[in-house]
C-alpha cells in the first residue's frame, strides 16, 4: 500500500485506519487513539470509579490494540472489536477489585486526581449546580450497585450510544437478551435510586 498523507488519514474510517496501521503507518494508530480515548474513559470509568485505574485500563486497551493489530480482521467493526477488548479488561479488574475490597468501591479516597466534571450549561445557578452534582453522584453510585450484566448493557447503550446490534456483538449475547437487560436494568436503576431516597429520609 502506498504512503498516505496525514490530512488524508484523518478522513479515513476506523477500519481503513486499522488497515493502514497494519501496513506500518503508526500515525493511523495515533488517530484512532485520539478518536477513542475520551469514549473509552467514559466507558471504563463506570467500572473503576478511579481516574488512575481508568487511565491504566484505557492504556491497556490501546496497548492490546497495538499488539494484536494483525489479528484484527475487517469483517468486524473496529469499535466493536476494541470495546470487546476494553470490556474484558474491565470485567477482570472489577472482579479482582471485588475480591480484594470489602469496602465501598463507589469512591476511591486514594484517587489523587480531583478532576472536575463539567456540565454542558455553565450558566446554571450555583444551587442548581450543587443539586445537579448530587444527582450525578447518586446516579453514578446507583450504576455501580447495578447487576453487572445490566450495567454493561446500559453503559454501552446510554453512555456510549452504541446500537443494540453492536452491544450484542461486544457482550456475546443475543439481541433480545441485550434489550431485556437494558429494560430491566433501567427499572432496577430507578429502584436503587428510590432506595437512596428512602435511606436518606430515614
Amino acid at each position, binding site marked *: 500500500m502506498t504512503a498516505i498523507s496525514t490530512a488524508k488519514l484523518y478522513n479515513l474510517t476506523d477500519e481503513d485506519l486499522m488497515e493502514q496501521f497494519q501496513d506500518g503507518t503508526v500515525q493511523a494508530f*495515533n488517530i484512532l*487513539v*485520539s478518536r477513542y*480515548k*475520551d469514549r473509552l*474513559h*467514559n466507558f471504563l*470509568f463506570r467500572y473503576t470509579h478511579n*481516574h488512575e485505574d*481508568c*487511565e491504566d485500563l*484505557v*492504556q491497556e486497551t*490501546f*496497548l492490546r490494540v*497495538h*499488539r494484536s493489530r494483525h489479528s484484527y480482521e475487517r469483517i468486524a467493526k473496529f469499535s466493536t472489536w476494541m470495546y470487546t477488548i476494553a470490556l474484558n479488561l474491565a470485567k477482570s479488574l472489577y472482579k479482582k477489585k471485588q475480591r480484594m475490597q470489602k469496602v465501598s468501591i463507589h469512591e476511591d479516597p486514594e484517587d489523587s*486526581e480531583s*478532576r472536575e*466534571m*463539567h*456540565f454542558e450549561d455553565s450558566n446554571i445557578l450555583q444551587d442548581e449546580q450543587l443539586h445537579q452534582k448530587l*444527582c*450525578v453522584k447518586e*446516579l*453514578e453510585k446507583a*450504576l455501580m450497585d447495578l447487576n453487572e450484566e445490566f450495567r454493561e448493557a*446500559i453503559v454501552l*447503550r*446510554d*453512555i456510549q*450510544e452504541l446500537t443494540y446490534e453492536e452491544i450484542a456483538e461486544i457482550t456475546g449475547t443475543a439481541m*433480545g437478551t441485550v*434489550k*431485556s437487560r*437494558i*429494560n430491566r436494568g*433501567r*427499572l432496577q*436503576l*430507578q429502584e436503587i435510586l428510590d432506595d437512596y431516597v428512602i435511606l436518606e429520609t430515614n
Partner: protein
Amino acid sequence: MHNQFTEESINDIILKYSDESFGVRDAVRFEMLLKQKPEYFEDAKVNRLMRLKLQSLPRLHAAPGFETRLAERIEREC
C-alpha cells in the same frame, strides 16, 4: 395479527419509547400495548427517564498528556 404481545415485543416497544427514533408507527404500537396492558406505562416512563438521566451524565475526558504516557508505555512494552 394483532394483540399478541410477547415478552420480546413488549421490550421492543418499551425501548423504542425511550429512543430518539420513536416514530408514528411506534406510537401506534405503544398505544395498542397500553390498551391491553396499561401496567407497562410505568415501565416505559421509567425507561425513558433513566435513558435521559444517563445521557446527561457529564462526559469525562482523558487527562492531559495521555497520548505521551501511552506512547511511552508502548515503547516500553511493545
